[in-house]
């Protein structure tokens, strides 16, 4: 009762990093609340394969649901398992990755349990909430903090009366760390058929193809990112050239992705990838909050913008007032001349 739950996402038998990141965050929240951290993983042929990828992150109890047809993920069976498990366990908090799976499963579970769900949180904290209208104060609620309204404001959301308090978080937003403290590390293997009926298995996955990531934007030490100010798809060729000489990766703002100048999977920001590079070179990016949320922990930030008042300049270590077109070739040239 009243524990913190994390839904563990897998690809075959490989636990996804976002889930480990959430376990580390969930452990902190559980410690603050004085409760246990529980995890649930659902798949096929996972018994004995996944436990050691999950338990080291501070898990007190792990529920493993292993049965045919539970991988690849489909909405209804996973929803039924989670909903029925939660009816028994009554958790107070449930965290999921803001991945395609988490964003398919989370809302379905929250609707079944009539509990609130906040998508794409960038911070999670514990705190109190005063409902002035009702004259009630709630202690130890989960603050679900996220940029809203296209990233122009940051909202703190609470679910005062409904449980579990559910939140999704994108990959890379939290940092994973093996837990040094004590935890129970209990593992249970519930009877799957008690949680899901055969009728739930009506959607069939005919084809499931996952390719190895084409880039390592999330872990790159140097990121060259382009925004609307890059001006064209061709403009991005220069950024790729700069990233190549610096041994970095290229990302883009939402505006650049929407314009079709760079692939969607390279979007940096709240609704894309969160990066923590040593050096972040922002090319023609104005710096909406939703973008800043995905890169503000970078080491050195260099902003190239012909608008000296671009919001991103405030958090930049170097501001180069000029166009991307003229500045980037010079960066390449002088890096090559000086680096040997």
């Amino acid at each position, binding site marked *: 009762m009243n524990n913190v739950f994390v839904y563990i996402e897998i690809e075959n038998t490989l636990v996804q990093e976002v889930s480990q990141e959430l376990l580390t965050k969930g452990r902190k929240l559980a410690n603050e609340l004085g409760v246990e951290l529980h995890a649930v993983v659902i798949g096929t042929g996972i018994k004995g394969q996944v436990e050691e990828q999950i338990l080291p992150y501070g898990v007190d109890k792990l529920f493993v649901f292993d049965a045919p047809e539970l991988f690849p993920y489909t909405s209804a069976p996973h929803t039924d398992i989670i909903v029925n498990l939660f009816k028994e366990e009554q958790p107070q908090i449930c965290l999921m990755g803001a991945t395609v799976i988490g964003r398919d499963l989370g809302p379905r579970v929250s609707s079944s349990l009539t509990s609130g*769900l906040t998508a*794409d949180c960038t911070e999670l904290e514990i705190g109190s909430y005063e409902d002035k209208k009702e004259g009630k104060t709630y202690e130890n609620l989960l603050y679900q903090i996220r940029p809203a309204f296209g990233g122009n404001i940051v909202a703190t959301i609470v679910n005062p009366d409904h449980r579990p308090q559910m939140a999704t978080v994108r990959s890379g937003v939290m940092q994973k760390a093996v837990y040094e403290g004590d935890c129970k590390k209990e593992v249970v293997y519930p009877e799957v058929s008690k949680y899901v009926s055969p009728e739930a298995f009506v959607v069939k*996955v005919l084809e*499931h*193809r996952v390719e190895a990531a084409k880039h390592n934007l999330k872990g790159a030490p140097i990121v060259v990112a382009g925004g609307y100010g890059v001006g064209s798809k061709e403009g991005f060729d220069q950024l790729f050239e700069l990233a190549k000489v610096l041994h970095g990766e290229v990302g883009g703002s939402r505006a650049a992705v929407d314009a079709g100048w760079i692939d969607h999977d390279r979007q940096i920001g709240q609704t894309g990838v969160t990066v923590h590079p040593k050096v972040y070179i922002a090319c023609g990016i104005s710096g909406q909050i939703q973008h800043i949320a995905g890169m503000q922990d970078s080491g050195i930030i260099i902003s190239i913008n012909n608008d000296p008042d671009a919001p991103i300049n405030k958090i930049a270590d170097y501001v180069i007032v000029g166009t991307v077109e003229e500045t980037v070739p010079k960066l390449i040239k*002088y890096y090559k001349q*000086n680096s040997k």
Partner: protein
Amino acid sequence: MALKIVVLAKQVPDTRNVGKDAMTAEGTVNRAALPAIFNPEDLNALEQALRLKEQHPGSTVGLLTMGPPRAGEIIRQGLYRGADTGWLLTDRLFAGADTLATSYALATAIEKIGDVDIVIGGRQAIDGDTAQVGPQVAQKLGLNQVTYAEEILKIENGKATIRRMIDGGVEVVEAPLPVVITVNGSAAPCRPQNAKLVMKYKWATCPLERTDENSAYAHLYAERPYLTLNQWSVADVDGDPNQCGLSGSPTKVKAVKNIVFQAKESKTLTSSDGDIEGMIQELLNEKIIG
């Protein structure tokens, strides 16, 4: 087979290209400065629906939207592109809804419409980016869901075959009808408005939208019933007011704030050769870049 298709569509403020004037001096969002648009991914969904209508003679496409009376514009935009009808859910009781209360309202309306084979909408709306309403509508209706769809490949023997995006790849799934589908922005863009349909539906309005300007066309509304769009209140869809709007929303907004960036001490440079070379040398000397 003829399909009855409902497209979920939302009128949203265009948050994508927010300029400086979109924030007021007090630091709140200046909604008036943001144009109201058809949520982009809902247009991708409309296109998939219109393609099904072409492939399956006898099919109908209707748009379902919730919002203030001016959101009737969304239905017109759909009619201009080939939809057959639409419903506007509008009522003060719907206001302040989070995703759960929104999906409750949409689900009750879909039940009222009745016998729907496919409910299809955008993956998410750009003013909230939650992607929750589609799956929640599906759950409330007890239907299967397919999210992140890129293309409906075929509908055959009461089953839809759909290609969808997943993290790092693609999937093809087969789901029995009726089904709720949400469509990703990477799907085919929507067709443009058709000039003849624009002429036909230009004066189509919901009763609450009508102003004095429309009264000059009273005779048209009498002659052409299709110019009066369906407008439903909570009572019209037999909704429970306690599950609608603010009172039906488990999530509460505790605080909203503008981010004040922790201003750093930054060096401002020009794009001159001297400045750029100086910066590169500095970064190399401090071993920040290798």
